[in-house]
């Protein structure tokens, strides 16, 4: 019943997904080792080398403050991981709880799922914009806002999957052998949801990058001084004709990371319980 995800069969015969996974590992290493890997301080201004071409010692060139682009890109990997994992955590915990409880306790479900419906009446980007208007620009708030946006869809997906599982014989068996509500929910139903939620997590991780970049671009995401790929694009876009590399590198990093995460999610989805395959939309 509960097929644990092992890595080998997921990536067998999927060259692209394997390359994607490798790229994500590289991003992870860059995020962890940023202070060691970055050749310069990502925040340090150097007016003498403003907008210099890619070359030595500035491999990715410098921006309009003379900051080293490569170092900012390496620190940007940190933000990518923080935004992605933070939003995934909030979306899965909040959305997962609401979805499971709503499907299990029918009365409570009527109330909770109506609230989810109300939040889903707001298109995703609009909801994020409205919430960011009310909150200050900070890393934590950006993560919370994106997490809430995806918590709604996650709640609906988990709700549907829990409803299917609830009818299964093993749930009846657990109840008959005297398991309480908490035990049925978290020891019997939840383990079956882990694999599909992992797939959902990979798609949320990917979309969160695009949402965060869009918020940065609109001036409503991370504070402008934070070195993130979205902020790099947003700040340097007026120099696009003079210094096109300033947009190519961070843009390519976002595209590669989102694409890789989508490929991995797609590969994972083909290996989960076939009953849940249609529940998770992804790309």
């Amino acid at each position, binding site marked *: 019943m509960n097929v644990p995800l092992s890595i080998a069969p997921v990536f067998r015969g999927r060259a*692209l997904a394997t390359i994607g996974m490798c790229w994500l590992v590289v991003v992870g290493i860059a995020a962890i080792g940023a202070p060691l890997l970055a050749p310069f301080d990502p925040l340090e201004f150097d007016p003498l080398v403003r907008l210099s071409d890619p070359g030595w010692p500035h491999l990715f060139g410098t921006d309009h403050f003379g900051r080293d682009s490569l170092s900012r890109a390496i620190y940007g990997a940190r933000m990518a991981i923080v935004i992605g994992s933070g939003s995934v955590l909030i979306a899965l915990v909040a959305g997962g709880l609401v979805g499971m409880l709503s499907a299990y306790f029918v009365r409570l479900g009527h109330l909770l799922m*109506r*609230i989810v*419906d*109300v939040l889903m*009446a*707001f*298109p*995703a*980007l*609009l909801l994020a*914009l*409205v919430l960011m*208007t*009310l909150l200050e620009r900070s890393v934590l708030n950006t993560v919370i806002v994106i997490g809430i946006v995806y918590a709604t869809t996650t709640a609906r997906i988990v709700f549907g999957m829990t409803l299917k599982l609830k009818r299964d014989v093993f749930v009846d068996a657990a109840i008959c052998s005297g398991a309480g509500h908490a035990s049925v929910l978290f020891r019997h139903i939840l383990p079956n949801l882990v694999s599909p939620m992992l797939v959902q997590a990979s798609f949320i991780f*990917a979309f969160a990058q*695009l949402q965060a*970049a*869009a918020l940065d*671009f*609109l*001036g*409503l995401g991370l504070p402008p001084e934070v070195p993130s790929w*979205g902020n790099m*694009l947003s700040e340097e*876009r007026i120099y*696009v*004709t003079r210094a*096109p590399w300033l*947009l190519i590198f961070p*843009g390519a990093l*976002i*595209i590669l990371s*989102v*694409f890789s995460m*989508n*490929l991995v999610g*797609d590969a994972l989805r083909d290996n989960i319980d076939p009953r849940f395959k249609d529940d998770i939309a992804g*790309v």
Partner: protein
Amino acid sequence: MLIYALNRVLTLVPTLLAASFLVFMFIHLIPGDPASILLGDTATPEEVAQLSRELGLDEPLWTQYVLWLGNVLQGDLGTSVFFREPVLSVIADGAETSILLATMTMFWIVLFGVPIGIVSAMRHGSWVDQATSGGAMLFASVPTFWLGLYLILIFSVGLGWFPSSGFPSIADEGGASNLRYLVLPSLTLAAPNAALIIRLIRASMLDVSREDHVRTARAKGLHPVRVAIKHIFRNALIAVSAAFGFTFAALVSEAVVTETVFSLPGIGRLVVQSILRRDYPVIQGVILVIVVFYTAINLLVDLAYASLDPRVSLK
């Protein structure tokens, strides 16, 4: 079917009421006195006092909401702090651009998405399929503003084929040739959405192709293209047409970023600029209009879906 339709409309009423309450609460969640927030920094104390009375700010929250909802239902969304005009007419000014942009985007999505999706499903598993599926996923992974900037760089700055920004209103200045201003923005907005449609068409056609009637069609020797179009695609179209509807509904708000890149005078850019200008009455009004529009389109899609596929309303 009629019962299903009535049922769907009735369940929407509480959802919309709750959503409108959230929109109403928006002004109250901003720190400060709602009347001064709505009037902006230049208001005199007398004006603030008068608006407080009109909004019933000394009444309980519930009464204030009813007062506000009454005004909204009569088309009074308040006055823009920045434009000094009724919010509704500010929004109406952006509607032309937004609707034309969304329509043109849908045109590209259908033009590119449908044939590529069909070919991808017909050549399922081949290199053509792998290339289109992979390509579609790649396009879905590109930040729209980045794509927009590079389209401007190539087609406006480099080749000079299309204007890079703005959109002179067709209604005011006439001339359908103004549509050329929307070519690059609509392509930008279409790219990720077409990618999703391609993958959806492929997936639903593969689902349908496993059904018995398709095997029968093949067994009696019909041409593969005829089977793909008439027997598979037409059945897959039910799910796909719903996706077209949802995509269209989402486009107006998704256009926020694209309209900002191309400086289009649409509703999306209005939201962003109003947020930056702290023009709260406009923000509140636009959110309300978009939510109602989004919900209405989604309802229409649901009803169309139920009339195309009777199994839905019988459940």
